[in-house]
């Protein structure tokens, strides 16, 4: 639906989501009332999505520096970490929750497209994609429709673009029924001498828009993402962009060639708020201004007014600040790849972002007042600790009966959608293209080798809405610690973190408390693991009239593997290996999948975590693998120790094992088998190496226990009983396919 020019009134300003004080401040900045075009610009640039106005103060408390960081959080489109050999890794995670909730296929697809552009706009070639997804109960057909659409969208975009989607996570909780979460992460590699920057720093440099034509799709996407979902949100479907991975592939190749040939001053991808955001941010970063004539932007549709062209979020576009004298080369390069490249303006001094239409001035705003880190509003919101936390954290677990048959419970848990294999999902993703994938989805973390070196990168996404809802600070710490533990199990040492913070309405003090606590917890954990936060994204307003999502900080972590020969997977490999548990079992059922599935309760405190112990455990695993003591390493997480052991037996792609477990403990049987106390890992080890491993564990002050043996027989818990591992395997792999083949 075309937008018409309108007279700016206080009512219209309010409809654009700007508060009275914000309106007054804008008038002060401009010295006059806004034009209609300017109202559009301010409304998107001062929206939560672009300005981070309610989160930036908290984000600044995160550790953002480290010796290997080449670009710090917030300076560029993504963080850049030196990995030696003249290379750096560039990575970031971002949400596309709101669009996916109303149009799952395109919402998810363009989420992937957007994060890939963030990576290659810096000159890096994407080498891997990951994701983190949250949905409601899959018994609900609407939820299955969302899951199906989201997975297809992620798959179709990444598969066609040619990036391997190597990992991720999927969880189902009622809190996400109307607000699914779709967080997409991308990882790229760049030569350190070819890192491109998002700056318009040289006056008179020509400014180009390249890639797709600009249409009416996605107008006000950023504003849409900055409000709660309601029944009216369906009407926002036109605010969802349409993805074209083929064009993105062409844009990737053209962009990397342009950077390699040294043709540009700066470049920024067009995501939220399109031309407006890319022009104002590059101008501000470059310390200059930009003047464009909107009539020169190649458009898809007739009659678009400047307001529409400026706010369009049409995909697969970049803003390029071309070096003076290199215009012909840029044009020839884009012609080779069959893409548009149109000059729309130039860099000017004076720091203003001016928009003309056929020479007529439509907007004239100081770029600084629009840019994050410049003059956009910054708010500190009120925090209030929810009273419910007193109830849940003091929950009396003696009211929960200890079940008689742990094996029956294991059979149930292994087939719950949260624990069952996500193979139905990840087989729809090409995880192998570019032929560097050493560990694909289905182990603790993915591993992608770096060609022409001995090294590889390990990567994973981790989040836990339930724990954060029960204890936001520790829940966020656990997300970081689990990511680090997942990486350690592959033999990686953590490098850095990107994060996606998914929360409800920040104007509600209890929600803001959970947001602030999560950020504090994440910061504490990241400091402990020496993993600076290189960037990320905040998504508020994941809320509908009924409820908000669980506070869900998603951690994307990347780690370094110095030699590919040490890469380790989670599954058992040899009959006769000893099974070792590293870490301490605790009476700890809070927030567990067991408590939810078997007893129908989501309560208690988040599980036990000691950050020092977590760090030592990671170092121990890495040392043990390097010493040649370990055949497999698997993190104990959802479903606890029993589920972890079952997964070790049944997830080897080439083999199926049983085990005999003999474990004595004073703690409740259900805590022992299904509690989710943190900092525990199950290893399989050649028996003659047990002594060396034990000594190493002592050195790192981590509890060591030989708890059993890998067999070709049953899954046996001594003194309890046995299960057929083939039956466990069938249940584990068939749950999601059966759910998703259900009609109605």
């Amino acid at each position, binding site marked *: 639906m075309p937008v018409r020019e309108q007279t700016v009134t206080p009512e219209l300003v309010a409809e654009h989501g700007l508060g009275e004080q914000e309106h007054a401040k804008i008038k002060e900045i401009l010295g006059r009332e806004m034009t209609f075009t300017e109202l559009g610009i301010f409304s998107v640039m001062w929206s939560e999505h672009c300005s981070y106005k309610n989160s930036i103060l908290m984000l600044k408390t995160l550790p953002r520096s480290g010796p290997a960081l080449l670009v710090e959080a917030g300076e560029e489109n993504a963080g850049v970490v030196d990995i030696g050999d003249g290379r750096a890794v560039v990575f970031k995670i971002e949400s596309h929750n709101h669009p996916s909730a109303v149009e799952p296929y395109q919402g998810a697809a363009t989420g992937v497209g957007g994060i890939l552009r963030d990576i290659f706009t810096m000159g890096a070639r994407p080498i891997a994609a990951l994701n983190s997804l949250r949905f409601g109960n899959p018994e609900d057909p609407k939820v299955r429709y969302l899951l199906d659409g989201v997975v297809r969208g992620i*798959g179709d975009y990444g598969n066609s*673009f*040619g990036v391997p989607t190597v990992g991720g996570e999927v969880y189902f909780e009622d809190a996400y029924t109307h607000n699914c979460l779709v967080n997409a992460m991308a990882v790229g590699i760049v030569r350190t001498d070819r890192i491109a920057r998002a700056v318009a720093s040289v006056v008179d440099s020509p400014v180009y828009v390249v890639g797709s034509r600009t249409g009416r799709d996605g107008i006000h996407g950023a504003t849409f993402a900055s409000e709660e979902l309601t029944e009216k949100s369906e009407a926002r479907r036109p605010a969802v962009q349409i993805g074209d991975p083929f064009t993105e*592939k*062409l844009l990737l190749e053209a962009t990397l060639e342009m950077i390699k040939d040294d043709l540009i001053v700066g470049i920024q991808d067009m995501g939220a708020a399109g031309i407006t955001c890319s022009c104002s941010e590059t101008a501000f970063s470059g310390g200059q201004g930009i003047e464009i004539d909107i009539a020169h932007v190649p458009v898809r549709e007739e009659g678009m007014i400047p307001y529409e062209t400026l706010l369009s979020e049409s995909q697969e576009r970049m803003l390029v600040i071309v070096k003076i004298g290199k215009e012909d080369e840029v044009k020839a390069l884009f012609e080779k790849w069959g893409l548009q490249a149109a000059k729309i303006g130039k860099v000017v001094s004076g720091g203003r972002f001016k928009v003309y239409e056929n020479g007529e001035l439509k907007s004239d705003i100081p770029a600084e007042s629009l840019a994050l880190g410049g003059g956009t509003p910054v708010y500190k919101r009120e925090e209030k600790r929810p009273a419910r936390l007193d109830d849940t954290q003091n929950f009396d677990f003696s009211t929960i009966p200890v079940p008689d048959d742990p094996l029956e419970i294991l059979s149930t848990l292994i087939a719950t959608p949260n624990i069952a294999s996500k193979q139905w999902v990840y087989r729809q*993703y090409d995880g192998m293209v*570019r*032929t560097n994938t050493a560990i694909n989805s289905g182990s603790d973390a993915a591993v992608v080798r770096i060609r022409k070196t001995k090294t590889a990168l390990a990567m994973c996404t981790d989040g836990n809405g339930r724990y954060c809802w029960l204890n936001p600070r520790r829940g966020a710490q656990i997300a970081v610690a689990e990511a680090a533990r997942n990486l350690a199990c592959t033999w990686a040492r953590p490098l850095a973190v990107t994060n996606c913070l998914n929360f409800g309405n920040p104007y509600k003090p209890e929600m803001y408390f959970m947001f602030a606590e999560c950020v504090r917890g994440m910061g504490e954990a990241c400091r402990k693991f020496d993993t600076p936060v290189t960037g990320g994204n905040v998504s508020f307003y994941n809320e509908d009239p009924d409820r908000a999502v669980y506070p869900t900080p998603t951690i994307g972590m990347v780690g370094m593997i110095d030699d590919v020969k040490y890469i380790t997977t989670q599954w058992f490999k040899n009959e006769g290996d000893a099974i070792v548990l590293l870490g301490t079992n605790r009476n700890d059922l809070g927030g567990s999948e067991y408590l939810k599935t078997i007893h129908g309760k989501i309560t208690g405190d988040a599980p036990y975590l000691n950050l020092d112990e977590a760090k030592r455990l990671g170092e121990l695993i890495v040392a043990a693998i390097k010493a040649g003591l370990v055949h497999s390493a698997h993190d104990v997480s959802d479903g606890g120790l029993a589920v972890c052991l079952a997964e070790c037996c049944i997830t080897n792609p080439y083999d199926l094992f049983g085990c005999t477990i003999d474990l004595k403990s004073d703690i409740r049987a259900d805590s022992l088998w299904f509690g989710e106390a943190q900092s525990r890992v199950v290893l399989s080890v050649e028996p003659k190496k047990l002594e060396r491993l034990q000594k190493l564990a002592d050195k790192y002050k981590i509890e060591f226990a030989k708890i059993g043996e890998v067999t070709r027989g049953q899954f046996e818990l001594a003194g309890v009983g046995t299960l057929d591992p083939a039956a466990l395997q069938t249940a584990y792999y068939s749950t999601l396919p059966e759910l998703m083949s259900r009609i109605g």
Partner: protein
Amino acid sequence: MKFGVVTFPGSNCDYDAFTAVRDIVRQPVEFLWHGDADLKGCDLIILPGGFAYGDYLRAGAIARFSPVMKSVIDFANSGGLVWGICNGFQVLLEAGLLPGAMLKNRSLQFSCRQVYLRTENTTAPYTRHLEPGTILEIPIAHSEGNYYAPVKILDELEASGRVAFRYCSADGQLGDQFNPNGSARHIAGILNENGNVLGMMPHPERAVETILGSADGCRLFDSVVKSITAGSAKSISDQARVA
């Protein structure tokens, strides 16, 4: 022996095929641009996987009209070796160099996974140095790999030994449960009448190093290089396994 790898704008396995040949097979290799009709004197042309021109219409439907394909068709018709992998197989079908068509996978989903192939033909250059029935572990990654042809053509393919590979179990059994996409008679790859054109959905270039999960794809590269250079090449697969 010189390999050529065609790059359509939406090819995304061109680099994988290129590096497999350069780094593992260790033979000369060049990229061939889709807009350029020159095959640069290559002995074997690989049409790689990907989404040639986006494939929003039908996989391979536009690629057959590209300048490079006119040359590839002439080259194939004069006996030149042309190897279509995944999207390359789809292009060969659209170009009429091989019979039949691709339907959507039985699951109606994209499917990426390791599969087993049973080698059915051992006379073509690609398979001449394999034992009949050799089982290869090679991954697939496609949404349109459900091979279809009329019964008469399927019978002809079988009768003339032009079924190159079938999907099977790890020990060579045939069955629907081992067929990942529903293809007719479990067909994973077929040859033209002269055996110089091979189309296959699985990706041998993704199975050339043990770190990638399998090095069985080397067996095919090995065979074709041996067939052309007549015994001068060492066993590539052995080299790769060691590497």
